[in-house]
């Protein structure tokens, strides 16, 4: 447990001291969302209908942007060797790093999303469901993303490769997250979608660390 907490705290501290990276991801998210009213035109009806999709897609892309910093620095400076040599299982170390990644990307994205929802004319009654969906779904983005981040260690252009690997994996959270908002707007009830979204996150929670740890061991060989 000491290793888990130590790693979690160190990654949070690093993110806070190098605040720029968290700011960049948030800035990208805000800008990507704000581009749509300019590109699609300011008609509230049209924008409102696609608002949830805009915010979710922008959140996915922002998450992809942040993935390369998950293991790359530790791989380059030899820290990953020491993490792998910890008596604690590597899977637990992965979980600690993913948790810190979520706190510094998924959580801020979720917290800022209600403001952006207003900009893209999302019906105010749907905003709580959007936020709840992001809160449930963004852990899956960090978890699934860690697999791609670990697989691309040592690749020459990791950024592009990460996006290609991980975006298909992000389809289920995207479908259920936007589906929940859609369901609220058509008065169907968002419960089923949110439950499925939760199922994606819960399934990724035990499975992704194993896949990621296996990929990291490969990278260390």
């Amino acid at each position, binding site marked *: 447990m000491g290793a888990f907490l130590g790693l979690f705290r160190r990654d949070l501290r690093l993110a806070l001291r190098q605040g720029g990276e968290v700011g960049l991801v948030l800035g990208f998210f805000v800008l990507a969302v704000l581009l749509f009213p300019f590109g699609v035109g300011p008609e509230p009806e049209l924008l409102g209908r696609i608002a949830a999709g805009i915010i979710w897609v922008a959140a996915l892309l922002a998450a992809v942007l942040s993935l390369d910093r998950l293991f790359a620095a530790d791989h380059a400076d*030899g820290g990953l*060797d020491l993490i792998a040599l910890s008596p604690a299982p590597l899977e637990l170390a992965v979980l600690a790093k993913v948790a810190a990644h979520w706190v510094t990307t998924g959580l801020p994205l979720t917290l800022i999303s209600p403001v952006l929802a207003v900009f893209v004319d999302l019906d105010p009654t749907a905003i709580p469901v959007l936020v709840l969906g992001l809160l449930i779904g963004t852990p899956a983005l960090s978890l699934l993303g860690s697999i791609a981040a670990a697989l691309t260690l040592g690749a020459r252009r990791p950024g592009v490769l990460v996006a290609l690997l991980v975006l298909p994996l992000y389809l289920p959270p995207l479908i259920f997250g936007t589906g929940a908002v859609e369901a609220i707007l058509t008065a169907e009830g968002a419960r089923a979608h949110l439950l499925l979204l939760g199922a994606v996150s819960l399934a990724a929670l035990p499975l992704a660390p194993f896949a990621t740890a296996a990929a990291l061991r490969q990278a260390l060989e």
Partner: protein
Amino acid sequence: MHRTRPTDPELVAERLACRRGERLVFAGLDCRLETGGALLLTGSNGSGKSSLLRLLATLLTPFSGRLLWDGLPVAQDAAHYRALIHYVGHLDASKPALTPREMLGFWAALRESAAPAMTIAAALDAFGLAGVADWPCRWLSAGQRRRLALARLVATPAPIWLLDEPTAALDSDGEARLTTVIAEHRAAGGRVAIATHQPLAVPDAAVIVLDEFAAPPEQALAALW
């Protein structure tokens, strides 16, 4: 589990072979590391010094041969074995934004051992880092970051030290501090394996010249298949 000599376990490598990509780096390597013992790994560039240390650290898996701790294959209880070793590779693993004190605290936590502030201060002192203990690592020189990596050895105890070119970037004062720390570690029954080019004052060390175990290029792989 039978233990013939519970007080005096041995690290034994039997017929180790290491393969990197399509190349067999070395083969048929035997070595042992007893209480208080020291191994000096020498050899030309690319002869596999670092690879042997990574094998001993379980970061690499041997292509053939096996590694025994206390008579048992280390792979059987890797977590237990990893708690016994300190590996200092040629990278320093220091984070530019964190201070040496924070780095040592983090590394101790990674080893699941709560190093009290006193021990960490002593480790910093042992390598002459007390003055820069609260600077961010980005202000440290290469030699100071090297000293910080070596201070890990003192901050948390471990009976087996695996050091890859520990004197790289160190000045003569740093080297003297390192040999003192190694001598104390061995006097207390610790073991150390060091890959190095420079002559290092490590008395009674067994020397392994890795070039002697270099596999002839073609036949080697074929023989092992």
